[in-house]
């Protein structure tokens, strides 16, 4: 019985233990991928959408691909690319996901690639975090928290002025 309990305890621990290792600086190591500096921005009142940002380094020898994302904070999360063409903002959904070439770092940042949270179930409040699950073609799924920065934040850690 004790052995059974111990096994159950061990098993439950395995279930709740994160499937990734995390550095002191917060970088998440997930298979060959290193995920760092995740953040999102505080949303304005009634804004039903939000953007998610992070850096993804592919330290492996093979290409991988961010194929989808989901979050309990949104009805849907899509992978988008934004670009300025002259003074016009253009946005496209990357239906095939985001290519992660071997040895390269792809950055999801304001003004470029981003996760688009659509149909928010709650406002994103500065200082809180928003959970998101990213699904990679080879590395599989990984769950992480995006700290909510100010509404116009450019990076995970705002520089002091």
């Amino acid at each position: 019985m004790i052995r059974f309990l111990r096994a159950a305890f061990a098993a439950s621990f395995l279930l709740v233990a994160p499937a990734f290792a995390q550095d002191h600086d917060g970088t998440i190591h997930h298979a060959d991928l290193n995920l760092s500096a995740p953040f999102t921005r505080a949303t304005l009142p009634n804004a039903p959408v939000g953007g998610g940002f992070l850096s993804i380094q592919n330290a492996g020898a093979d290409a991988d691909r961010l194929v989808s994302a989901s979050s309990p904070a949104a009805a849907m999360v899509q992978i988008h690319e934004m670009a300025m063409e002259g003074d016009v903002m253009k946005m496209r959904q990357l239906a095939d996901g985001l290519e992660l070439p071997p040895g390269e770092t792809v950055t999801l940042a304001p003004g470029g690639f981003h996760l688009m949270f659509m149909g928010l179930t709650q406002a994103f409040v500065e200082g809180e975090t928003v959970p998101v699950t990213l699904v990679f073609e080879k590395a599989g799924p990984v769950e992480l928290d995006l700290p909510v920065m100010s509404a116009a934040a450019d990076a995970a850690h705002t520089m002091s002025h």
Partner: protein
Amino acid sequence: MTIKSIRLWLWGAVAALALTAIVAAVLLRQPEQTGFGRGSYNLIDQNGQPVDQTVFVGHPTALFFGFTHCPEVCPTTMAEMASWFEQLGDEGQDLRAYFVSIDPQRDTPEVLGDYVSWVSDRITGVTGTPEEIAKIAKAWGVYYARVDLGGDDYTMDHTASVFLLDASGEFQGTIAYREDQATALGKLRNLLAKS
């Protein structure tokens, strides 16, 4: 001079006055119809009050076109606008801002109200019928287009610049998306000094 010739002369004077009035009316109306930023449209603000081309007269204006479902450009610009108002303080007392929705189907006055009030009490959210929104967008050369995202979802591509208007409603320049704050404040101070 006979009565007849006086009557004739009077009629001539009436005709000349009428002609002058018509010409003046046409000339005065002309600037409202043509030229950058000129047009006529009937829109509403977040409180359901009517908004037309005359609202830009009487104070310097920062004018932006966007939509509340915008993931980045609009919230960023709204946050920057909030900090412009904050930085300018009393100096910017006369400045008014307008957020015109290029997604009027989803941006009802109620939706716009809270969204813009986050920025300042001196910003007005503007919406209306798609036809009237098209008129104001055309007047300012604003591009916008619907981009489908699957299902019923869509986003909008749109011009991201902030237009600056002086107190007579004349176009004075733009602040580009993500323009450096010091430059943006310089442009606003310039506008306020001129107005």
